[in-house]
């Protein structure tokens, strides 16, 4: 058990015992070291199964929509980038600010289990970081990998180590910001020819099995009734319109979260086909930043999004498209 996990458990115990909160949302030990899963803890005893390690990539803010409907306050552990999601949900009135006790927690990049598997490491019992390397205690001994090869993509271009919202924090070590350019890939794609771009996306999106994992995990995809499940919306996957939905799901989804997506990267993290879905959202974010001024969804808990505001002098659509290509 690491010191950070200990401190978090202590914090949770304290809040529960003092009655400050009714429940704590955190992670629960899974079968293996690499599969902790989000869970709600309602008593100090239940905290025995609480875990926090480098595999706790999941963004817990989305769970609050449901959990916080229950009576009393809910505490939640949020990594810096997760706090933006919560803030955005508060802005959209999906979560009642008054009923949340947000605890910002330390994050030193999270591991990507798929990536680890891909380089042939399995049977992990424990993990730790050693400088630029990740060290795994596996069933068949210790294995090492370069950190940049095994952490989640989003952690290579971490957008912030700031907590957008937090009553309290548990941070034991300084969090280092990785300063990669998160738009590098988008720019690279923009620099290709239209045919190359099409080939790229066709290759990626044709793998989609429509499992809905991206939609289910996305903290911006929180609709009570998703358009794709609503026969009245005209785009639902009803029998006679399967091709429409099939073909346009990702486009419509990306548009719906534009201006609201905090770039938390959960979509790509959970995609079983490893489709870089975050590159769809980042295109919108980059366009918004460049055309309408820098904007980070979830930085504020009030105010309008770029798509619900305007400037009289905004760029014309034709020019915006050309600009995007010239980049």
């Amino acid at each position, binding site marked *: 058990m690491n010191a950070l996990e200990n401190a978090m458990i202590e914090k949770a115990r304290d809040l529960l015992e003092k009655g400050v909160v009714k429940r704590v949302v955190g992670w629960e030990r899974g079968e293996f070291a690499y599969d902790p899963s989000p869970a709600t803890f309602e008593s100090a005893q239940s905290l025995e199964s609480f875990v926090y390690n480098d595999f706790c990539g999941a963004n817990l803010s989305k769970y609050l929509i449901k959990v916080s409907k229950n009576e009393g306050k809910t505490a939640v552990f949020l990594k810096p980038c997760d706090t933006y999601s919560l803030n955005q949900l508060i802005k959209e009135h999906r979560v009642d600010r008054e009923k949340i006790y947000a605890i910002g927690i330390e994050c030193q990049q999270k591991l990507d289990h798929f990536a680890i598997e891909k380089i042939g490491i399995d049977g992990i019992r424990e993990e730790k970081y050693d400088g630029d390397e990740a060290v795994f205690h596996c069933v068949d001994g210790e294995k090492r990998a370069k950190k940049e090869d095994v952490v989640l993509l989003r952690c290579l271009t971490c957008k912030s180590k700031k907590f957008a919202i937090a009553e309290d924090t548990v941070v034991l070590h300084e969090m280092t910001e990785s300063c990669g350019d998160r738009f590098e890939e988008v720019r690279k*794609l923009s620099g290709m020819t239209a045919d190359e*771009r099409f080939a790229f996306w*066709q*290759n990626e999106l044709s793998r989609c099995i429509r499992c809905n994992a991206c939609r289910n995990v996305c903290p911006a995809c929180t609709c009570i009734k998703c358009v794709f499940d609503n026969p009245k919306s005209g785009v639902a996957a009803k029998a006679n319109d399967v091709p429409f939905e099939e073909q*346009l799901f990702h486009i419509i989804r990306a548009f719906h979260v534009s201006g609201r997506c905090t770039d938390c990267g959960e979509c790509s993290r959970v995609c079983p086909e490893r489709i870089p879905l975050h590159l769809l959202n980042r295109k919108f974010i980059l366009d918004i930043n460049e055309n309408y001024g820098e904007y980070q969804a979830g930085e504020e808990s009030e105010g309008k999004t770029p798509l619900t505001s305007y400037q009289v002098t905004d760029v014309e*659509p034709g020019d*915006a*498209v050309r600009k995007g290509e010239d980049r």
Partner: protein
Amino acid sequence: MQEVNTENEKFVPNIVAFCCNWCSYAGADLAGSSRLSYPANVKIVRVPCSCRVNPTFVLKAFQRGADGVILCGCHPGDCHYVTGNYYTRRRMALLFSFLDYLGIEKERTRVEWVSAAEGAKFSAVMNDFVRQVTALGENKRISDLRVKEE
């Protein structure tokens, strides 16, 4: 002109034009009453305001076989509903840029501001847009996006 691809010469694109009731639709009417022709393959859907146009409508048109989609609205600042077309402008700038990013030809989409007095502009815009889309040929990419040829 002799070099024009003969296949494309035969190709007649299907164009969907969304026009706001107050400016562009009236502009289209004026083009009509001024007998300013534009190709018959442009068909207009009347909407109260350009801001009523959901990206879904545009995508649906493409998915159902339209070869080009054009949105027309009041000039920014002249919106009948004060601010509607400002939102249209942002939405479509982002949507079209996004489609282009996916490799779907940017020449198939367009936004134009046409006032009720600009019948000539309406006709000129439609002629130009049809020419542009004709040169591209049939729209296949939206439906092919999710299907990789092996």
